[in-house]
């Protein structure tokens, strides 16, 4: 079982011109959560992953990938 998750959340966020605080506000979480997900420290729940994908208008698969 994978314990880490590759993600391109930071790229997707900056491409939208959003700060961590902007994204946190739109997703209804703290900036700490956005920060730890971007840094790969925290693996988000399915609900949060879906929420982030919706806010960034992309797919979950585009945001998060299992390591090769």
């Amino acid at each position, binding site marked *: 079982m994978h314990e880490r998750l590759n993600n391109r959340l930071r790229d997707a966020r900056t491409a939208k011109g959003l700060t961590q*605080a*902007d994204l946190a506000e739109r997703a209804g979480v703290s900036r*700490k959560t956005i*920060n730890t997900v971007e*840094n790969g420290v*925290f693996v988000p729940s399915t609900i949060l992953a879906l929420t982030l994908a919706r806010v960034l208008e992309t797919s979950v698969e585009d945001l998060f990938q299992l390591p090769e």
Partner: protein
Amino acid sequence: MREVGLVGKAERLAKRRARVFAVLAVAFLGLQTVYISSGALHENTALAHFKIGAWALNALGLLIALATGGVFLTGRDVRHLMNDETTLAHRRIAIAWGFWAMMATGFGLYFLSQFEAVTTREALHMVITFGTAAPLLVFSYLERRAYRDA
């Protein structure tokens, strides 16, 4: 902008909470030297009972703060942001560390009791003390770490 302000307020309070938890845990551990040096754990006086009662209330208050997030006087939206899924994960990890701290204390006391008599009150005092302080320190560390590299 109002909502971004909400995120900022939650962040400010969460950082403060992490600092306060660490200070309270260290103070709580430091206060134990008072109990040990004053002999309150062995005495049966009204003052000793008062001291032990104060210690128990202190421990209970800290555990309630850890379990609830320790924020009661803010709005529901801010509380929600301060107790989002990262915070809940940190709390779970911290409580697990509390369990191991209690086990380590228990094993240590068991070992010590072969050389020196340990009363039930002393043993419970030590187990509860470390079982309270350890998760607060771990939670504080995890919360502060989560804001790094922002």
